[in-house]
């Protein structure tokens, strides 16, 4: 039996599917977050060089990874919406932008707080920080462009073009510590090897999964709201229990 994926491209079909999927991501997110925080704040030892200030890594790194990953996912769904001319792909891209912006903002702010005790400064214009700040502006630009265009389909296509144009920034952020002499530390974690103590790495990976599952749950929930809003004239919306007053 082959699954026809394009059936899921209809908002009427995807709305209940998304509703059923959300708990499968929300509960694991909460669980991973509890375990990750317990590991990070409790079980992981005090760092030799940085003392206890390093523990913000358990929020900073997952947020930073999600900020880059979500932008690429948003650009992917934008490309899908341009290529297949599907409304739902664009609605997913629309749903991702605020969460991506939040993750970027969190990464910048937690990085600032981490920098103060360790580097002595809240901000330094080094390559990674600057390119992450540009990523925040790119997210805000996509959100601003969508709110500036009244016609939803024109907004979909314009935001997709903008997201794809800015997608080139993400590899720059990722490789910035390799390409430039920067204040930010280099890549400590690579697939297959890591320079971190195992329990710290474990805590960080569990928090990364927590951030990922949280992002999926929140994006699906927001996408459901967007579907109700944009498809409000459709018959299936009126037939839902939520919308019958």
């Amino acid at each position, binding site marked *: 039996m082959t699954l026809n994926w394009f059936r899921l491209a209809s908002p009427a079909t995807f709305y209940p599917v998304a509703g059923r999927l959300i708990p499968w991501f929300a509960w694991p997110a909460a669980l991973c977050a509890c375990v990750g925080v317990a590991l990070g704040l409790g079980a992981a030892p005090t760092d030799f060089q940085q003392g206890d200030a390093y523990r913000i890594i358990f929020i900073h790194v997952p947020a930073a990874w999600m900020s880059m990953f979500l932008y690429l996912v948003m650009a992917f769904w934008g490309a899908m919406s*341009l290529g297949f001319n599907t409304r739902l792909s664009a609605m997913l891209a629309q749903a991702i932008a605020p969460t991506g912006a939040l993750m970027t903002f969190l990464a910048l702010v937690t990085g600032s707080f981490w920098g103060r005790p360790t580097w002595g400064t809240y901000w330094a214009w080094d390559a990674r920080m*600057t390119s992450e700040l*540009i990523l925040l*502006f*790119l997210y*805000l*630009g996509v959100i*601003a*462009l969508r709110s*500036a*265009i009244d016609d939803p*389909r*024109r907004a979909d*296509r*314009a935001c997709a*073009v*903008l997201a*794809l*144009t*800015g997608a080139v*920034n993400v590899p*720059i952020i990722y490789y910035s510590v390799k390409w430039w002499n920067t204040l930010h530390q280099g890549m400590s974690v690579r697939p297959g090897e890591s320079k971190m103590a195992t329990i710290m790495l474990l805590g960080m990976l569990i928090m990364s999964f927590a951030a990922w599952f949280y992002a999926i749950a929140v994006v699906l929930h927001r996408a459901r709201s967007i579907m109700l809003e944009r498809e409000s004239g459709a018959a299936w919306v009126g037939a839902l229990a939520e919308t019958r007053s």
Partner: protein
Amino acid sequence: MTTAAEPAPVSSAAGAVLPGVRWALLRDLRIALRSRSELAVQLLFYVIVVALFPLASTPEKTLLSTMGPGVLWVAALLASLLSLPRLFAADYADGTLEQIALSPYPLEALVSGKILAHWLTTGLPVALLAPLLGVVYQMDGESMAVLAAALLIGTPILSLLGAIGAALTLGLRAGGSLLALLILPLYVPVLIFGAGSVDAVRAGLGATANLTLLTAGLIIAVVGAPFAAAAAVRIALD
């Protein structure tokens, strides 16, 4: 009456890239040169912005010469932003842009011609004027030469990326400031490498690395931006 065996006539313009570029370039240049005062105003804006910074901070020499390349570059970015709406807005307002999009010439070629005309009337004068204004910032000859080279490579990138933003924000209420928000993050790498080239020369490292990266950016922009801008124009015309 034509028989079924005769093929339908195809315009010689279909798929013709360079003739399309040439047509759009000559048209836009002709229109721009009709209002030479508008071009002069843009240059004057550049000069005024460059003059503002020493007034705002200090005319002290060492500080000025450190600030100089950065200020000249930022002013070039702002001048480019200010002139970008001129690229599509007038044609969009009177319906010419729709006719251009319907033409058998590839829209990417026509957009490339428009961008080239925009650079020739905006970016090129700024790139030639900036080193002269470097005197105000106590820049020496070598710095001025490197600045000119960097601006000559960088200003086309500004026109190319700016065209994408101008097409995306066609006809929108918040046009100008939204354009700035969308385009400035994309301009930042150009700014960093452009201003960095002069700093590198002053530090004795040589500008080759920065200028090479700028050129790479220019090549990527020349290849990619016309497609993105043409797609954005079609989106705006729907």
